[in-house]
């Protein structure tokens, strides 16, 4: 077969210009695939991380059924007992109790619907980015039971200043009406419009009192070091819960707590892949064009070779080798460029603001608070992009390969 190998290789270079153009197309395709994989990984990882750290945490322990309708009466009773048990799991880095209340808030003549989030100021420091995202004023200190931190957009709508009074009403967990007043200590900016437009962050004890919850909470937000390790941790946590007899509770991953993020990512990724596959098909046609043209040009040669005794198998193999050697340099270059660009973007990132004003706003609206996206290259991405390019090349080569195997030498000789 080494003859076929040599012939395959030499055939590629018989029309240098055409081959190089085809290789360039393959290189581009491979590079794009590699870069896209790295970029998407980086972007989605950042999106998930941001959402997780802004609010929901890597995992949450909730009462079974709370996820469906968020009824304020579906509570986690005796949260301290659960916190103590879960704290023993080594992968757990921080646990933050949370209360969540639908509220109506007022200041001056302005009224707005809001979501009251009750958090423990001490524990929350390690749990979410909320206490660290205060552009103005400060987060309420431990012991401050009167303070409230308001989302920047909500604060603007209500014309709030640091020190303003915020009046609150809503319904408690026993049926009475909440009537309360807190003092604005600071504003919080998560970069996610849904949160900045709705959140009022309240000291946990005050929230529990307001809503007549006793010492119960609605969720325990749990942080670990890496969002990709969340699923084995979920299994561990659920085992701990059943070990301490708390079968009323369930441990949920961030993607279960907020399926929207995962779905948004999958949708975006999906559309990216569709685009890529369309490109792959187009490049595939390009390769097919090259191979078919080469095939037709050499038709008489095939006739001669077949007449001289070349078996159809060898003919096919020769064409496949030609396809292989056509793809190989392109893939090597493509991978090289892809790795280079991915590496570059992983260090310096892509600043989305280059794409115009309003991008930051749009990102915030969709829940993606970062404006610089860093790519994240993982080695399997090289294998995948190379395989895709090889794949499309071989697939297109099947047509001329098959032809060689089936033409009659006399027809080939007479071709033209």
């Amino acid at each position: 077969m080494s003859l076929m190998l040599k012939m395959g290789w030499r055939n590629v270079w018989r029309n240098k210009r055409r081959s190089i153009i085809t290789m360039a197309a393959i290189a581009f395709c491979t590079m794009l695939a590699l870069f896209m994989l790295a970029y998407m990984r980086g972007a989605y990882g950042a999106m998930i991380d941001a959402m997780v750290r802004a609010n929901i945490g890597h995992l949450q322990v909730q009462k079974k059924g709370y996820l469906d309708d968020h009824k304020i009466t579906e509570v986690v009773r005796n949260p301290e007992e659960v916190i103590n048990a879960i704290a023993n799991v080594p992968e757990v880095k921080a646990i933050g109790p949370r209360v969540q209340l639908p509220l109506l808030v007022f200041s001056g003549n302005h009224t707005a619907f809001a979501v009251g989030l009750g958090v423990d100021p001490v524990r929350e420091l390690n749990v979410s980015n909320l206490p660290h995202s205060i552009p103005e004023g400060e987060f309420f200190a431990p012991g401050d039971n009167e303070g409230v931190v308001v989302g920047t957009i909500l604060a603007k709508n209500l014309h709030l200043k640091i020190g303003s009074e915020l009046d609150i009403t809503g319904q408690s967990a026993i049926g009475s009406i909440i009537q309360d007043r807190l003092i604005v200590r600071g504003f919080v900016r998560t970069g996610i419009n849904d949160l900045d437009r709705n959140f009022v962050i309240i000291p946990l004890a005050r929230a529990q009192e307001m809503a007549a919850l006793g010492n119960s909470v609605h969720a325990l937000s749990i942080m670990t070091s890496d969002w990709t390790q969340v699923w084995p941790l979920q299994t561990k946590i659920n085992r701990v819960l059943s070990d301490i007899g708390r079968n009323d509770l369930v441990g949920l991953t961030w993607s279960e707590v907020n399926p929207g993020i995962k779905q948004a990512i999958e949708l975006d990724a999906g559309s990216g892949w569709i685009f890529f596959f369309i490109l792959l098909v187009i490049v595939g046609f390009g390769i097919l064009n090259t191979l078919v043209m080469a095939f037709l040009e050499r038709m008489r040669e095939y006739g001669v070779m077949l007449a001289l005794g070349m078996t159809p198998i060898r003919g096919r193999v020769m064409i496949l080798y030609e396809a292989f050697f056509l793809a190989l340099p392109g893939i090597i270059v493509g991978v090289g460029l892809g790795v280079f660009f991915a590496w570059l973007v992983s260090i310096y990132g892509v600043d989305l603001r280059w794409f115009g004003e309003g991008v930051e706003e749009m990102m915030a609206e969709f829940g993606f608070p970062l404006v610089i996206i860093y790519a994240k290259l993982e080695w399997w991405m090289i294998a995948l992009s190379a395989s895709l390019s090889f794949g499309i090349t071989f697939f297109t080569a099947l047509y001329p390969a098959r032809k060689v195997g089936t033409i009659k030498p006399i027809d080939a000789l007479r071709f033209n």
Partner: protein
Amino acid sequence: MNKSISIIVALILATFAISAPADPSNEAENIIKQVDDLLRGKTQYAKIKMTVNNPDWPTPYVYDMESWSEGTEKAFIRILSPAKDAGITFLKIDTEMWQYLPKIDRVMKIPPSMMLGSWMGSDFTNDDLVKESSIVEDYSSRLVGTEQDTANGEVIVIELKPRPEAAVVWGRLIYKIRKSDMMPLSVDFYDEDDMAIRRMLYEKVQTMGGRTTPTLMRILPLEPDKKGRETFLEMTEIIWDKPVDRAVFTKRNLKNAG
């Protein structure tokens, strides 16, 4: 001759009596108006105990309140107990409603977006309090027929459908009224997709303040996700048709401790 003439006159008179068609819609509307007037009076002062049963709460929540109303346009309600909610007041004038929260000294106008929200955690909505007066204006009535009920004897069934211009949330209502004393027994509320959403029951008919009316209203939600919920409104004292001081139906009055 005289006898024939008398017979003819009698026959003619008889045909007049028969030929005047019994207008069913007219009769139905009259009945509804009658029931409405019975429950409302010209003015009404009442002391009410509202019990809200919600399986999510540890115990049913009980409010004591007093209310003033004048015709179909004006109403004022003050919560008397429990202590943490005492002093909360509501004012309704026509289709607008205000609420006062004493602990934060705030008068709040209930915006349209909150109209379908529950009133004080009960199975009544804000819209109920505001719109319940305009049954006669907003709906046209049709007599469906009568049915027999073991407890109540003959019961008149009337169907109410919204008039085209009416801005109401219901698709239709079914009123059941006891024929013997024209006391309302129940109202079934259907939404626009003709799903039965809730039932209001009128019970404990007694004479209070000189008038005989039902003194216990029960709202029973019929939707499956509201299973176990029920609200009771029990009148413990009623004063009918005593003129109400103008000052009662004012925003200023919202803040009065009463």
